């Protein structure tokens, strides 16, 4: 693993809005539009071509809005991989980086083969390649490999164009495509009979092929996301990065529609022997754009030369950028321990990640050799669709969980309408690609499961916490050993004291190894070197807890800094593989429609992959003789009863399992539930009683019943998140209002639980 400094240096901020907008445009106007026009024209007809570019632009904008919002809130951690790590944790972020790696590599291969196709085609058209001993198709592959090899070498040398120089190249590309669009419109105005080329408007086979071609050419709208990576170098990134993303999608969509229009009206049927113009352009789809534009120019040679130069400029600059991007993605996975250390190797002389670059080179070469431009583009498209799908999920998740903590520079309207729309459209496009390129789907079906297997078999065992996630300030390990692990999150001495007795009982019942953890939240503005100033309270709390627990249980302690307490605790639970997490809750709560219990406790309950026990007001020398367990048949009820059994006084404690009769408990049989739990846990025999009371106000009835008890143990709601957003769930409302000592529990149930909570 490569050593990483704890404190990262700052780059000088000298890129303005224009530079980063051009950076996005430079990536987007690669080869996608040049190859896409022919593919789309042959698949969807002349009008379908314009519809495909316009709708794809809109779908890309929905994703760009998600990227813009996330980049404005997290400008230093741009990129889908980082957003996924912050939003969903390590596993999904690995898969995101893994897909980003193939997406960029496939795009690189696509640009290389497109460059070769146009360049070789141009020279062959001039009759300059007749001496070749090998077929033109084979020679194209050689040229594609040479182009890819050249830019891999350039990336190895470490010389990459800066935003400012790159902006000049992009201006040149833009001028060319804008000029084609303007000429096309001018020609159509001067000779309106050319508009007859729009008949038929759509392919005679109908609209159904439109989605497939839209999916294949989606790669032409990929590229705005690289703007997120320039956050560190941008002046006023919260303002300029989101603007640049939105502008680049708007500019590129309008330009593409204009160029598509020009390509339709460029050819007159009379000039091609009465053949329909759209069929002529789509005859050789991959160079359809060239076939159209040569008719717009004064001479065929001039038209071909211009198109070839434009493709050379745009494909090579995009090829350079995608190789850089793919290398960055795989290097990040290697650096974070999720791929073997070879991926994180840095050349001592060039300071470039040669390990990641060499494996990326293999992928780019493989795509360039094995796939035709259409399939290479479709493979890149499908991977980018998956990638943007994840980012659209991230924006929902991050706004929901961290919206109160992050500082936003842009918020999308009607949240979460647009990310949801984007997700739906991306699913449709990805699915439809199979009609145009089953090869792309086959590759995706191998690559994504391969990523899952790699993560399960390697990455999750080797992953290291990144500096943005968490940082260990002080750690003391117990003797190594197996057994049930309980993690106790300690905030301060008061909080520690209030949890000790209950924690002691739970640890004793489980014969557990104990991990005390304290998270020191360090604001983004504070240098990490000052993190230890914040750890004093936590250290005292841990010492307090150790006094009680250390003599009885194997005990480890960890103090870490983190940017966010909830994320830090969940990360620690995953890393230490805790079976149960215990944390305290002060019971105070700000008014919020977003958080049910609190901005720290909610995300922990949501994401911690283990049993969670939240203690409220359980401190002092309280004894719990009468324990109330309200249930309604939810999946956390058995665990609530188990915890109640542990906390109730062993000699004379009695537990009442309460259900409030009414509509919500329909189908739940209390007696059956109690019998099942007694069978499962015989130690509860003779201590548990069932009780049903009738009341319209469930919360009020439970609170009224709770008055007669020493402790209330509740299972968290199991309602899906989307439904929960509409109203306050009963358990959480009871927890807020209950004046008695209270314990909330959630049973960890892995992937199934995660899926259920969302859907």
């Amino acid at each position, binding site marked *: 693993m490569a050593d990483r400094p704890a404190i990262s240096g700052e780059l000088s901020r000298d890129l303005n809005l224009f530079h980063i907008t051009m950076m996005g445009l430079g990536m987007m106007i690669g080869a996608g539009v040049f190859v896409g026009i022919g593919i789309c024209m042959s698949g969807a007809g002349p*009008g379908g071509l314009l519809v495909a570019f316009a709708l794809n632009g*809109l779908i890309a904008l929905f994703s760009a809005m998600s990227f813009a919002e996330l980049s404005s809130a997290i400008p230093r951690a741009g990129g889908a991989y980082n957003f996924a790590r912050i939003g969903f944790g390590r596993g999904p972020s690995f898969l995101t980086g893994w897909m980003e790696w193939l997406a960029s590599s496939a795009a690189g291969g696509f640009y290389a083969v497109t460059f070769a196709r146009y360049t070789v085609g141009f020279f062959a058209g001039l009759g300059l390649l007749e001496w070749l001993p090998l077929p033109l198709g084979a020679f194209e592959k050689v040229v594609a490999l040479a182009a890819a090899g050249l830019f891999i070498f350039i990336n190895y040398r470490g010389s990459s164009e800066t935003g400012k120089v790159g902006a000049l190249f992009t201006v040149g590309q833009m001028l060319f495509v804008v000029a084609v669009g303007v000429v096309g419109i001018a020609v159509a105005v001067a000779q309106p009979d050319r508009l007859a080329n729009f008949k038929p*408007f759509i392919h005679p086979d109908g609209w159904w092929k439109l989605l497939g071609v839209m999916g294949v050419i989606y790669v032409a709208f990929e590229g705005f996301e690289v703007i997120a990576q320039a956050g560190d170098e941008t002046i006023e990134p919260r303002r300029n990065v989101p603007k640049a993303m939105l502008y680049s999608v708007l500019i590129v969509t309008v330009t593409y529609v204009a160029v598509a229009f020009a390509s339709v009206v460029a050819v007159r049927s009379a000039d091609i022997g009465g053949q329909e113009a759209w069929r002529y352009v789509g005859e050789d789809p991959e160079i359809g754009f060239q076939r159209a534009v040569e008719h717009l120019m004064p001479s065929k040679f001039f038209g071909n030369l211009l198109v070839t130069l434009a493709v050379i400029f745009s494909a090579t600059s995009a090829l350079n950028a995608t190789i850089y991007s793919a290398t960055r993605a795989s290097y990040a996975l290697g650096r974070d321990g999720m791929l073997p250390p070879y991926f994180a190797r840095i050349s001592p002389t060039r300071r470039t990640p040669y390990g990641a670059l060499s494996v990326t080179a293999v992928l780019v070469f493989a795509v360039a050799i094995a796939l035709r431009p259409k399939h290479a583009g479709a493979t890149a498209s499908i991977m980018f669709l998956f990638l943007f799908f994840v980012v659209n999920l991230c924006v929902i998740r991050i706004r929901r969980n961290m919206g109160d903590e992050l*500082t936003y520079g842009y918020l999308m309207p009607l949240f979460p309408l647009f990310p949801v729309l984007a997700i739906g459209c991306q699913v449709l496009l990805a699915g439809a690609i199979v009609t145009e390129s089953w090869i792309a789907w086959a590759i995706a079906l191998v690559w994504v499961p391969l990523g899952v297997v790699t993560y399960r078999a390697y990455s999750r065992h080797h992953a290291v916490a990144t500096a943005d996630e968490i940082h260990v300030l002080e750690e003391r390990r117990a003797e190594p050993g197996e057994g049930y692990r309980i993690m106790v999150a300690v905030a301060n001495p008061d909080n520690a004291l209030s949890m000790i007795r209950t924690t002691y009982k739970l640890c004793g019942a489980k014969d557990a190894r104990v991990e005390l953890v304290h998270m020191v939240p360090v604001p983004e503005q504070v240098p990490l070197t000052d993190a230890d100033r914040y750890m004093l309270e936590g250290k005292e709390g841990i010492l307090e807890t150790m006094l009680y627990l250390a003599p009885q249980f194997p005990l480890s302690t960890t103090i870490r800094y983190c940017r966010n307490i909830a994320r830090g605790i969940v990360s620690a639970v995953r890393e230490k593989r805790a079976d149960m997490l215990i944390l305290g809750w002060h019971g105070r709560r700000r008014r919020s429609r977003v958080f049910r219990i609190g901005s720290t406790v909610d995300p922990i309950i949501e994401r911690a992959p283990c049993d969670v026990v939240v203690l409220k007001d359980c401190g002092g020398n309280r004894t719990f003789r009468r324990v109330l367990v309200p249930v309604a048949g939810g999946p956390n009820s058995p665990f609530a009863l188990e915890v109640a059994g542990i906390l109730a006084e062993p000699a004379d404690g009695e537990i009442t399992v309460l259900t409030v009769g009414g509509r919500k408990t329909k189908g739940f049989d209390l007696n059956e539930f109690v019998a099942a739990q007694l069978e499962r846990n015989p130690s509860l025999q003779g201590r548990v009683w069932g009780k049903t009371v009738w009341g319209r106000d469930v919360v009020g009835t439970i609170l009224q019943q709770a008055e007669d008890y020493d402790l209330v143990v509740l299972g968290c709601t199991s309602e899906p998140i989307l439904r929960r957003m509409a109203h306050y769930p009963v358990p959480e409302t009871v927890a807020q209002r209950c004046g008695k000592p209270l314990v909330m529990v959630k049973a960890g149930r892995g992937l199934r639980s995660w899926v259920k909570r969302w859907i």
Partner: protein
Amino acid sequence: MDTDALIGWIAIAAALVLLTYLVLWGRRTINRIARTGGRSAREIHRELHGGG
């Protein structure tokens, strides 16, 4: 004009208009947030929607 063409041109125009509107709306929002300083999602939302 046949039905396909009518649907197609409407789709193109609607997509371009919506796209332009969303970008201009985004630009205005970004400028507005920048003037008052970046804040949490809830605070911005409240400000943009007149205290709701």
